[in-house]
């Protein structure tokens, strides 16, 4: 194609493994599905005016079912990512980010970059300090929503997994001060996740626009590209 020409040397490599990319997108789709179905469960925005002639209309039950299906999909993805972070060999670059996490100088430089006054700092791992703490908080919110979600689940489904989780559900209920508060925390954690996701999408787009190294593509193809001598 005519607009293509040699633009210097790029280093390339797999940044995100297939498993990593799958868990990211399963998590992403689940979050959107869970927010939509969750708002319905909180306040059913689709209702019928007339009773069903035959008792085979299960709108709430169906939406709740999808909420549970996506909920367990998200739990799986979150658990996979947690184990990945702590134990997978290829996650060593993620783990190295901890070295920068407490470095105030790097953090201030990162803020400076976003305020357009300083250059992007060189980081030891894949996450800069702001990113690292944002993701750490995201996982606090994830586990918060999972724990409260499983407690709510066990109160509706008393057999099988729900039955096994029942003592755990009662424990969560005692801590929160009743099932109403469990639901409230579930709802608050949802909002916190929405806010993190919103900013995350902006940051990803921002880096794609100004990074000019196909950064956004990495979460689809797994490939990361960086110009020689410009590694962050």
């Amino acid at each position, binding site marked *: 194609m005519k607009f293509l020409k040699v633009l210097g040397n790029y280093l390339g490599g797999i940044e995100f493994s297939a498993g990593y990319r799958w868990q990211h997108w399963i998590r992403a789709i689940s979050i959107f599905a869970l927010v939509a179905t969750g708002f319905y469960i909180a*306040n059913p925005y689709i209702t019928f005016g007339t009773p069903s002639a035959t008792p085979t*209309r299960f709108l709430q*039950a169906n939406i709740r079912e999808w909420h549970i299906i996506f909920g367990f999909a998200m739990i799986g993805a979150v658990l996979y990512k947690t184990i990945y972070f702590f134990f997978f060999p290829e996650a060593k670059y993620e783990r190295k980010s901890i070295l920068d996490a407490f470095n105030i100088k790097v953090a201030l430089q990162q803020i400076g970059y976003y305020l357009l006054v300083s250059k992007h700092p060189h980081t030891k791992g894949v996450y800069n300090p702001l990113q690292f703490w944002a993701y750490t908080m995201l996982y606090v919110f994830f586990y918060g929503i999972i724990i409260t979600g499983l407690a709510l689940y066990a109160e509706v489904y008393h057999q099988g997994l729900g039955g096994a989780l029942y003592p755990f559900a009662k424990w969560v209920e005692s801590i929160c001060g*009743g*099932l109403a508060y469990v639901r409230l925390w579930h709802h*608050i954690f949802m909002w916190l996740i929405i*806010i993190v996701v919103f900013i995350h999408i902006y940051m990803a787009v921002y880096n794609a626009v100004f990074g000019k190294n196909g950064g956004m593509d990495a979460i689809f193809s797994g490939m990361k590209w960086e110009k020689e001598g410009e590694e962050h």
Partner: protein
Amino acid sequence: MLDVQKVKQRIAELRKLPGIASKPLSEILEENGFTRRDFLKWSGTMAVALGLPASFAPVVAEAAEVSDRLPVIWLHLAECTGCSESLLRTDAPTIDNLIFNYINLEYHDTIMAAAGWQAEQNFEEAVKKFKGRYILCVEGGVPTKDNGDFLTIGPEAETGLEKVRRTAKDAKAIISVGTCSSFGGIQAAYPNPTGAVGVHKVVNKQVINVPGCPPSDRNIVGTIMYVILFGQLPAVDNFNRPKFAYGLRIHDLCERRGHFDAGEFVEEFGSQEAMNGFCLYKVGCKGPYTFNNCSRERFNQHTSWPVQAGHGCIGCSEPDFWDSMAPYEEPLANHKFESVSADATADKVGITILTIAGVAIAAHAAISAIKNPKE
């Protein structure tokens, strides 16, 4: 497993104790126009309410006959007497009402004949005479702020706090009747000016909570009957509520549950949907968060209950329900936080933060587009 032999043994033990009624229960019932058949019918209902097999009906009958051996002392603290109303004020002198009058109810402010100093004396004597044997039922929360001075009872101006502690010390079993004595109730609602708490917070003994505003007479009588029947406290859940009554949510056994699963909801009171008997979730029913057996036992001799009458459950048997379940006629998604500066729902706070973030992002993106970040 439930052991009929064990229960029979327990009743035999109780039979040996002196009763206070002048004549056996069977005679009293007959004099009041109740046949033996009525009595056994009640016993069967009670056995089922307690989650016992029908074979226990005769045993329940026996337990009721010896129940005058177990004295009950009923304290009124910060409360409205609604729980006593639930227990006593029914449209006809029901058989359970009658039996409750004839169990050894040693002290009960509102329904005892004695008054003034005489009532005080009855109380002191009962506590002394039945030391270690009486069942203590408490109605009402315990104000604890300023040493409990917000509630004083009787001519000596004894605080409720002192009275409940003193009486609980020698009680065989303590039953908190109603949400106030279980969890503090309305006076413990935000901002709780009197520092009201449930009984279990001020005594260091196990307390059985029978919450509800009011709890149904079945749950009160059932719990007392359980203690008499088994000589021990019933199995309880995480908030010390008897499992036989509070094991399932209102929602689990609700007669409108089909409409909930079908997505058929009442949008406003008095609408066509309401007439169709749709689910009351969107007009504030808190059944999904509330553990109680109202949907099975109902109130006033199984006549009706709020959801049947067309208003959602307000969650009155849950701790802290005045705060945690509000607003009562809207779903919990519209719950308001109590805060110093403002009341706002989670959704409003979330949308506000999201809007601020959105504006900030737009500004940041615009500035970045003009003045690119440093490479």
